[in-house]
């Protein structure tokens, strides 16, 4: 007998609390300001702002504004697609270290023709300087920055 397959789809609702630190972060973000928190022990500025330093295991409460410009720490050109993918390929996903931060955040790099990988490779590499391109109508989510563009 031909083995059979049962098909179904599961969709479930979730509603994650941002918590006080993320709420404050995104309130500032909505105003196009980016904040980290400085660890009193190791001195690092951790971006996005957070409630504790995982290494020193101490609470953090010193908020430090960082710039909306930074450096590409690493990147990839995403050319494949799958069910549940948040972005439409092709796109460039990158880890960006903002000026004033000791950590990097993942975001998009765009603002130029992304259809050809070789042209993308010619435009960006590790170390490329980028700056945020903000949405006109910010809402307080990480996508208030539409993408980072090479400076």
């Amino acid at each position, binding site marked *: 007998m031909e083995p059979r397959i049962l098909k179904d789809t599961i969709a479930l609702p979730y509603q994650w609390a941002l918590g006080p630190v993320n709420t404050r972060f995104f309130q500032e973000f909505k105003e196009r300001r980016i904040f980290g928190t400085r660890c009193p022990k190791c001195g690092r500025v951790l971006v996005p702002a957070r409630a504790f330093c995982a290494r020193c295991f101490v609470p953090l409460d010193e908020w430090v504004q960082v710039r909306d410009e930074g450096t590409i720490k*690493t990147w990839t050109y995403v050319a494949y697609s799958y069910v549940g993918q948040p972005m439409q390929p092709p796109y460039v996903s990158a880890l960006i*270290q903002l000026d004033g931060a000791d950590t990097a955040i993942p975001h998009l790099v765009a603002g130029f023709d992304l259809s050809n*990988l070789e042209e993308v490779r010619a435009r960006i590499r590790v170390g490329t300087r980028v700056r945020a391109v903000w949405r006109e109508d910010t809402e307080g989510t990480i996508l208030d920055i539409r993408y980072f563009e090479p400076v």
Partner: protein
Amino acid sequence: MARKVAVVGTGQTRHGKRQDVSYPEMIREAVVAALEDAGLGWEHIDAVVCGSMPPPMEGTNAPHLWWADAMGAGGKPLLRVATCGTTGISIAHAAYYHVASGLFDVVLAVGAEKQYEGESQGTMTTVGEPFFQRQFVAGAPGVFAYQCNEYAHRYHLDEERVRAAAAEIAVRNHVDALDNPFAHLRQRITVEDVLRSRVLAYPIRLLDCCPASDGACAVIFAAGEVAPRITRTPAWVAGVGYAGEEHWVGDSDKVWWQSARQAALQAYRMAGITDPLEQLDVAELYNPFSFQELIFYELFGFCGPGEGCRLVEEGVVRRGGKLPCDPSGGVLCTNPIGATGLIRVAEAAMQVTGKAGAHQVEGARTALAHAIGGTQQINGVMILTSLD
């Protein structure tokens, strides 16, 4: 002095697209094979440890409850451990500590995945938390492509050279898989095929990337006192190491990757390994993407930082070389993720006990098994040896 523990039996399913069997049936295949290999009956198993990738991947919550009967776990202690990509090695670690603690003498470890039953990349994207990272983390290839690009830049390596070495690793894994009857991808490919295959997430191309597999693996661990009565060829657990880092992918260095370093160093310390290239005979590395393997050579001390390509170019890491890596064909040819780390342990045990068949590395005595997981967040290592 900690209690000695050995692997006394291993079993694997044929890996690949396994729509011929249900999830529990597939698991049963591996468990029966492991029991046969050890010459043990169900009644000899004192406890069971199992795991897989996130349950949303196959759509059944707490799947160990469903698997319990297939694993013969009824009336026994059962523990599900799940640590993302490291799940398989975490299962082995848990089984090891079950025995090392003195609570149990013989423990069955089971890892499984049925990637064809769900959306694995979609699920893995949800490893990123929803506020900052999920939007940008493009499944596993996207995350690990970050690491590959950063690697080439860090050591000022010519990108073409790195791509060639990675392609060579892909070819070597595919050739080796032809000698492994359990392997999923069994096809001969060339360096040109790899370099010409389509880009998934630059620099990772289709043939640099593991397949999505269905499959299961079972490994039986036994206490030092009983292992020699079960088998003439116990594979002793000589070293165990594991480390994780921050959730934030951008918080720590993924090239000189501390969790991988720490996991290996813990295991080396326990196993008394000071010169891994000399003291290890085989390594089953977790290489879902060819490039990553270069980084692991360096992190595990097979060579210095930035020297990974050289090991490939000089043939050190191929069969016949000083330290053959992934003679099974590796993760690159077979990746039922929740089983994958445990398959590394099984393969390492098979190698050091001379049971690896056509892909046996001549005279292998000590082998390293490894797995990674999370958004470049965690690493686990286990070292097995036939040396008493």
